[in-house]
């Protein structure tokens, strides 16, 4: 598998580290009432068959965090963006 890093170009999988679901959002609240949201955020993940947005770190290259859209069934990668986009 190759990932087309927006900065470095196409590189082999061994240059990257998988860093999980890119869609989870850290809850704003740290109150007891937000417990369920925190359990969701820390532990619970969907396991979709199909398109998945995920984070990859280009540790052996430019050190960017990437948001990769990958089909979990075919491994086809349809989009790669810098996770820091717009910041």
């Amino acid at each position, binding site marked *: 598998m190759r990932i087309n890093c927006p*900065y*470095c*170009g196409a*590189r*082999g999988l*061994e*240059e990257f580290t998988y860093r999980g679901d890119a869609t989870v959002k850290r809850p704003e609240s740290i109150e007891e009432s937000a417990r369920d949201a925190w359990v969701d955020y820390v532990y619970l993940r969907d396991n979709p068959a199909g398109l998945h947005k995920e984070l990859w770190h280009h540790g*052996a*290259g*430019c*050190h*960017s965090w990437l948001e990769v859209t990958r089909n979990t069934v075919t491994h086809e990668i349809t989009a790669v963006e*810098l996770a*820091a986009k717009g910041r």
Partner: protein
Amino acid sequence: MPILSIRKEGGSVSNLESTSALHGFATPGRYGKRDGEAGVTASERKNLGLATVVARKGQEAALKTAIQGAYGADLPDGSRSAVGKGVRFIGIGPGQWFAVSESLANEALADELATKLQGIASVADHSSGRAVMRIEGPAARDVLAKGLMIDLDPRVFVDGAAATSTLSHMGVLLWRDGNAYDVALFRSVGGSFWGWLRDSGAAFGLEFVTTS
């Protein structure tokens, strides 16, 4: 122990001779295939000024203007180099560059950059942490291909092109300078790099020379 300078309260004593990153591992001479011209020649570019330049938040445009003004180089938005007055700037990541200089030797480059870029970039001296090996000759690409997973075809990896990647599992920054390839590696893997180079270059004939 590679000691380039001893810093003392604001000043620095930099007259100590720098030690080759391959000292104790490699001796100059011909390795591998003996007949004919050497397919690959390797040398260490010693006493280079090496530094990283990282734009402060929101200061990338100001940094580019400052570098253009001071060195006449356009900082590239990608892994390639821009050669300015006495300094080569290589893109190593978004908002980050690796600077290389012969004329501003050792820590002089980082000192100058830090002074000129105050408030708009963070500058770190890498001159005592990295060694730069120059690989050239007709078989240079064939040798590098044994360790790198980068397409070095000259139509793709043009003069000035650069890549941060791994060479035989060692993290390296590689750039092309004319027909030569420069490889910046951590000094601490100098021995491992030499072992890789000696064995990978043997089939083509490797000439290892040192520079002053």
